[in-house]
């Protein structure tokens, strides 16, 4: 699993390197600031991968100077698991702020395709609890306990690469691969959260995540 993750990491890097060389002396184009709103669609598939988990994430991006995008991303993650032997509930939110830099030089034929280097600072917090935990041991028998509600927060950094391409009109789609590293987190816990919105499973630090997004570019 981890090998395939790192192989995926190579894809944007190879694309970046190969596409960077394409822009041999393109004609100058008139650049205008632009605002783009996006929705992450990976969260919609999360319920298939992680039944009981639902994540929604939106983004707002401003290209304030050519090839530089100031970006704000925010979202929520809710987890609700009910099984005979256990339950688990978590509600949290997260924000990320940072910048994207477009490596792909634009020409008049390809104004709308981007290859991005991505930098983010992320912050997330949640409350989680479990009222029924049953751990069964074949020798000692079953042990029942519970986890009272407790809060958790973490700060992390992200570095990644991605591509964005126009589908039609103002609609774009894109994907990115990011490496995330937690730099500060709540330490004294009865139990680590199952996952943190915007970051993923906490047992991995650093971790790698893939995101697919749809975007709408507002005319300015």
């Amino acid at each position, binding site marked *: 699993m981890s090998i395939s993750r790192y192989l995926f990491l190579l894809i944007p890097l190879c694309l970046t390197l190969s596409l960077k060389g394409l822009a041999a002396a393109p004609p100058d184009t008139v650049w205008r600031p632009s605002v783009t709103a996006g929705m992450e669609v990976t969260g919609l598939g999360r319920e298939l991968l992680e039944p009981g988990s639902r994540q929604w994430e939106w983004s707002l991006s401003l290209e304030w100077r050519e090839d530089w995008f100031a970006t704000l991303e925010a979202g929520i993650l809710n987890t609700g698991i009910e*099984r005979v032997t256990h339950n688990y509930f978590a509600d949290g939110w997260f924000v990320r702020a940072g910048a994207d830099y477009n490596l792909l030089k634009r020409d008049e034929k*390809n104004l709308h395709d981007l290859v991005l280097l991505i930098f983010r600072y992320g912050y997330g917090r949640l409350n989680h609890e479990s009222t029924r935990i*049953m751990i069964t041991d074949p020798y*000692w028998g079953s042990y029942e306990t519970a986890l009272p509600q407790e809060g958790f927060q973490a700060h992390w950094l992200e570095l990644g690469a991605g591509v964005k391409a126009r589908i039609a009109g103002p609609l774009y789609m894109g994907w990115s691969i990011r490496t995330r590293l937690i730099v500060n987190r709540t330490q004294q816990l009865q139990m680590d959260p199952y996952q943190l919105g915007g970051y993923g499973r906490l047992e991995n630090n650093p971790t790698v995540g893939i995101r697919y997004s749809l975007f709408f570019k507002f005319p300015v």
Partner: protein
Amino acid sequence: LLNLRSMRARFSFFKAFTIILLVVAALGLPSCQQDELCEDLTENPLRAGFYRSTDDGSQLLAVDSITVYGLNRPNDSIYNNQLNVLRMELPLDPARDSSAFVLHFPEATDTIWLTYERTTILVSVECGFAMHFQIQEAHYTTNFIETLEISDSQVINTADEHLKIFIPFDPPMPDPEP
């Protein structure tokens, strides 16, 4: 002109590549439903190996036979007269901060007491919760065991060995019955 055509072709590939990735991801999601069946380990036994001391450290050593059970549970064996044992797995009691085991060797019987800290973790949606242990202390009798060493105090979902139990290489013969 050739250069432009080449660029156009490569950008078409670039877009197609993005679309293919999206389709593959969409198709791959159902097959990746890792939480439908529990395939993760939820039992985290303590692993102990038998060793003899050597000049340059230690060497694995099989005990001829062993019977192991929890203290005060002689009728509920974890190992029952198991032959040629190099390593054994001992389940730690998830309900208490300590467990004790009786090790019955052909030559003598010893008891090991282990104290630990417990941490509950959610393994996955379908597997539910499991217990991780951090060994704090180990006490033991020395009827047959020479010494005992905690080689890894973290008892989690790995195949690591946690205890080294040193026993005599040339076991003394039991005293003759009077």
